């Protein structure tokens, strides 16, 4: 499942027509203050609830405690490694699974977009498998690979593969027929057609697919690490959970959130660059 594109908040904001403000519409200063208030309310509420003792500190540590634990974890190993080492092994798995999915998915998608018969053959199987949640591969991952590196990669792959295929296929399908005609009449064979028409033409769609795919890969990685591995941020969180160490669990969540956010920002930047390049060409 997955692969569908969630609507984008930034796009929506950009789409809003810049017209004169309505009567009573808030100004920039007021909005900025409200945003600051939002941040303050979030942390303030957290702090107050944690400090008041309504919820035991064991379950809801104050923000300061979590921050201290976070920094503590960066130089004091927990569950075998420091936080950076856990993150590195998570990122390594992520990159392998994601690279594999992109390397298999994008060419398959392009081929499906070009050869209609291949699309007819692959699509029904692909659609069927797409409905299997990536995390449901955990048992087979454990059966086939044990605790080895293959298990998490299988799960990440099954999360990241569909958007790669779908977007490459759509990108190839939606290329202007004139371009294909022109290339064909100039005598381009299949190989040149791929290299010089299909890949460049479908590139924006492919990159958009890669971004979605990276997000899903990172999510699936977290799921995989909760179950089948013995290092990584997910594993750190599971260990924290079984020790009822809430600050450690929360530190893991923060680390996962930050890395996921950075991955998204990097791929968004790449996407915007490519789109700009295409618009200028």
């Amino acid at each position, binding site marked *: 499942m997955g692969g569908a594109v969630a609507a984008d908040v930034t796009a929506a904001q950009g*789409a809003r027509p810049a017209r004169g403000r309505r009567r009573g519409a808030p100004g920039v200063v007021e909005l900025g203050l*409200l945003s600051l208030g939002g941040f303050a309310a979030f942390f303030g509420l957290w702090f107050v609830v944690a400090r008041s003792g309504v919820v035991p500190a064991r379950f809801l540590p104050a923000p300061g405690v979590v921050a201290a634990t976070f920094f503590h974890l960066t130089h004091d190993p927990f569950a075998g490694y420091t936080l950076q080492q856990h993150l590195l092994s998570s990122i390594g798995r992520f990159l392998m699974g994601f690279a594999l999915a992109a390397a298999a998915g994008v060419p398959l998608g392009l081929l499906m977009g070009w050869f209609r018969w291949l699309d007819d053959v692959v699509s029904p199987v692909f659609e069927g498998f797409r*409905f*299997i949640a990536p995390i*449901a591969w955990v048992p087979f991952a454990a059966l086939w690979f044990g605790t080895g590196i293959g298990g998490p990669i299988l799960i990440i792959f099954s999360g990241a593969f569909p958007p790669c295929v779908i977007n490459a296929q759509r990108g190839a399908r*939606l290329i202007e027929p004139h371009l294909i005609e022109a290339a064909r009449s100039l005598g381009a064979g299949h190989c040149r057609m791929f290299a010089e028409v299909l890949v460049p033409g479908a590139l924006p769609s492919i990159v958009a697919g890669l971004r979605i795919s990276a997000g899903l890969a990172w999510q699936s990685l977290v799921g995989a690490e909760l179950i089948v591995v013995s290092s990584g941020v*997910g594993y750190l969180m599971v260990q924290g959970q079984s020790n009822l160490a809430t600050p450690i669990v929360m530190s893991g969540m*923060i680390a*996962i959130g930050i890395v996921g956010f950075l991955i998204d920002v990097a791929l968004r930047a790449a996407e915007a660059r490519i789109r700009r390049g295409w618009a200028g060409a």
Partner: protein
Amino acid sequence: MHIGATTDSRSYRRAVAAGRARMASAGRRPWIGAATVLGLAILWYVLTTATGAVSPARFPRPADVWSAALQLTLRGYAGGTLWLQIWYSSRLVLLGFLVAAATGVPLGLLMGMSRRAEALINPAFLLIRPIPPLAWIPLAIVWFGLGDAAKIFVIWFAAFVPALINTYTGVRTLDRTLIAAARVHGASERQILTEVMIPGALPLIFTGLRLSLQASWTTLVAAELVGAFFGLGRVLIIAAQDIYPGMIAFAMALVAILGALMTGCLGLLERWAVPWRRT
């Protein structure tokens, strides 16, 4: 032979094919798909049963899956029969999804309508959004244990975000002229909400709900894998511990079929609620 002529007719056919492709995937030839599925089934049989090229301890034979299906349906496995497990999983998904929809959609409407509400709520939302739903599972277990409350909490996080974002986008991308026109004709704020904004945003709201439902299902299966007393995720993890490939395959198929059924039901609801939507 006129080479030019053949190329022409080929390119003509190609152009026609490209034109057809543009009409979505409606022109798919189903018999090819059916043949592929049949071919894969035969391949499965040949590799596992007829030749034994793949060990049944690694990948189940068709007969293993069938006997697993019989066992789960008739005698039960991992603490219950098929119907009990399905009932547990789908009940939790529906509960979590309903809670998420009931909070995410109104909040999205509010943020879409009022810039002030958006400025106030967005910071907390931005802080929470990058954390993938599955990362909430350990915290949910610490807070609520292995019972229903933990599952609903995690599903809520998974399903809340797409419901909110899409509703918000649906309201924000509405044609402002429509709202202005309604206002000029004397519509109250409430009428603008119920008669302009909600109907206008409904297609995107449903897109959000579909993503929410899919996220709910994936997250629930993951939560049940990590720790649960009943449910399909529990069947999966027990089958993995028992090294029972037939049951693993059957449970995976169930996960896929139930996911597809839920999405299908939501599609029907959408067709009924948003009859004007294209595709």
